[in-house]
């Protein structure tokens, strides 16, 4: 199989798969049981692509030959593109050889819908069986659940994979109907519900038996596209919050829409992907998961979209100035997390160090607090160090949004990156949120479906 046709297939199928952003390999720990590979809980990036994004998995499609015709997708059946498919054997070989060389952490296998959902899922299962049973591969595997496939097949795939995902893509029923008419909400939520049930059952069994079967041990995730429709950040974030609650998702990923097709209901083909908007959504998502914020605190009826100049936490602080300043030496953990410039790690350090001795102003920087932002919102040992009596406008002027890329680099890359692994914070140039075309205006703001 060592020939150039493999090279070409890998190129074509990677090009088609790369817009799927969920690349995190973290969330599970598997010991090697005498074969090849293991999975580490922390997740490992193996390289960073030219766009600065972390590459952890071999992310590819089984095939790009699709019977569906989703408007936003490069592989839709109405596009005249080259169609290729891998065999199960080819994928298994590439995964093993890449893994041995430490190029990758594992496999992220997605697929267009070839022939029908069952046939596609069967081929996915065949690939996983080769890897797990013949090659005794214990590395990380993430597969797409194909909506519409038989529940029995989804179960089989779930027993072999570490993570499964169904991409929701759009947060409202209306958008789905217009852009992906062959999909519907029920069809998408069904496999999600099944996977959740499978995971819950195994967890229950684990309480009872020592050797409970495995089922998607790293949990399930999903992805939503940002900027293909007029859906607001609020619709997207509320949908994400509901998905976390109702399906216990591990992650929701957001993907700035890169126009690959022309279409009446789509942004113009030259529209730049709304990277900054995507960045704000990731920050907000991070606030939901680790900072105990609720979606309704971050966006309101009056404020449907995130301010692109300030991050969501800072914006929340602007709207709630009456709660500040907060005393570092007495505030509880939840309150510390609400201070701009204080992250999870610094909040923990504060809690620890306070047990031994009161915290002094000079300590704050060493504890990892970004003082440039925090000093307007805190008191330390009763003393306030920012300028007095600032109202929102004054604060905004001081925090004076620099040209966009500088503003973003304030966000400390090495400490807390709200992305799967690695980040995309530094933008080459300021980016506009895609301006609506005429056709798009029809979409309006849909009802949140979950």
């Amino acid at each position: 199989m060592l020939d150039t046709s493999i090279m070409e297939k890998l190129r074509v199928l990677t090009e088609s798969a790369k817009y799927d952003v969920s690349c995190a390999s973290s969330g599970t720990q598997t010991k090697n049981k005498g074969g090849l590979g293991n999975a580490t809980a922390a997740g490992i990036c193996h390289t960073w692509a030219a766009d600065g994004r972390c590459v952890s998995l071999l992310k590819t499609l089984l095939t790009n030959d699709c019977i569906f015709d989703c408007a936003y997708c490069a592989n839709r059946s109405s596009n005249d593109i080259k169609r290729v498919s891998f065999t199960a054997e080819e994928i298994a070989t590439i995964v093993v050889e890449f893994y041995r060389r430490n190029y990758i952490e594992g496999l992220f296998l997605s697929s267009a819908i070839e022939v029908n959902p069952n046939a596609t899922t069967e081929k996915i299962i065949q690939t996983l069986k080769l890897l797990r049973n013949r090659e005794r591969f214990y590395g990380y595997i993430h597969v797409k659940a194909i909506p519409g496939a038989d529940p029995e097949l989804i179960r089989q795939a779930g027993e072999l994979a570490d993570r499964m995902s169904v991409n929701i893509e759009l947060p409202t029923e209306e958008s789905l109907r217009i852009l992906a008419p062959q999909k519907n909400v029920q069809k998408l939520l069904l496999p999600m519900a099944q996977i959740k049930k499978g995971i819950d059952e195994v967890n229950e069994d684990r309480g009872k038996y020592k050797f409970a079967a495995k089922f998607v041990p790293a949990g399930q995730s999903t992805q939503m596209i940002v900027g293909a429709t007029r859906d607001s950040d609020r619709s997207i974030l509320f949908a994400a919050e509901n998905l976390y609650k109702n399906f216990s998702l591990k992650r929701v990923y957001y993907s700035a829409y890169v126009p690959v097709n022309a279409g009446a209901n789509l942004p113009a083909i030259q529209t730049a992907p709304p990277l900054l908007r995507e960045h704000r959504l990731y920050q907000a998502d991070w606030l939901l998961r680790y900072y105990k914020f609720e979606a309704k605190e971050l966006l309101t009826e009056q404020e449907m979209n995130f301010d692109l100049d300030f991050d969501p936490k800072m914006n929340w602080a602007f709207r709630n100035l009456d709660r500040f300043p907060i005393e570092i030496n007495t505030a509880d953990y939840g309150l510390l997390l609400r201070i701009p410039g204080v992250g999870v790690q610094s909040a923990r350090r504060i809690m620890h160090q306070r047990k031994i001795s009161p915290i002094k102003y000079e300590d704050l920087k060493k504890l990892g607090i970004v003082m440039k932002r925090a000093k307007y919102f805190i008191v330390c040992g009763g003393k306030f160090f920012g300028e007095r009596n600032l109202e929102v406008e004054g604060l905004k002027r001081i925090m004076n949004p620099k040209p966009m890329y500088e503003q973003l680099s304030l966000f400390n890359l090495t400490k807390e990156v709200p992305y799967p692994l690695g980040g995309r914070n530094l933008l080459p140039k300021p980016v506009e949120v895609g301006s609506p075309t005429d056709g798009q205006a029809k979409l309006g703001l849909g009802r949140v479906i979950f």
Partner: protein
Amino acid sequence: MIYLHDGLFDGFLTCIYQHYYGHKATGIFEKASYTPCLFDEVLVIETDTEKARKVYNSIVEKLSEEVYWSVFYTFLANDVNKDCYLLNYIVLAFKMGPSISLLHSHDVVYPVKRLSKKVMSERHRFLGILRFSDIGNCLYAELEPENDILMILSDHFVDRYMNERFIIHDIKREKAIISNLGEWLITDFKLKEKVIFGEKELFFQGLWKRYFESIGIESRSNAKLQQQFVPLKYRKHVVEFHTD
């Protein structure tokens, strides 16, 4: 009194032992990297594994595993004063007990936290960017890390490649992990001749490079960010960054 050791962790721990049972140490250095100073009183300490073990035991028992790992990671750091920081840290730790882990910004604690974090993150980086080649009878990888991280890479790769034979070669320090189906050791190591890659190896290198080129999204291209994650100094041994 300045104590000098042979560069092994046991040597360092023996110095700590001497500090408590002999003269008080004012500084500890590795013999090879110490620049003599006219006014220093210097003593070279003979490594004694028994004494080292006693110190190790009391760190783990009276303090905590966490303290031990901070000490060990800091010891691997590339910093001439690391052992002096550690001396102060260990002395303070035995005064305070395990609660020393709660401190972070303290003058004695901070340098240790800072260095151990640096070592830890370099380890994590290499878990990702270390590249092996199949050279016929085993897998072979080269690296030139800033800190001496070979030891703390071993657990990860030995478990991962349980069914393989491999060599991880620190060419700067001329030593290597050599692992054979799960059994391994660290030893002095130098290549006699240049490694030559076979056809199959070159094919998979090429395939990987092709994949690497295809995965980036052009409209989001961002070389500056890429360089932040993979600084130029690390690229020498990372095959997808080689141009040919």
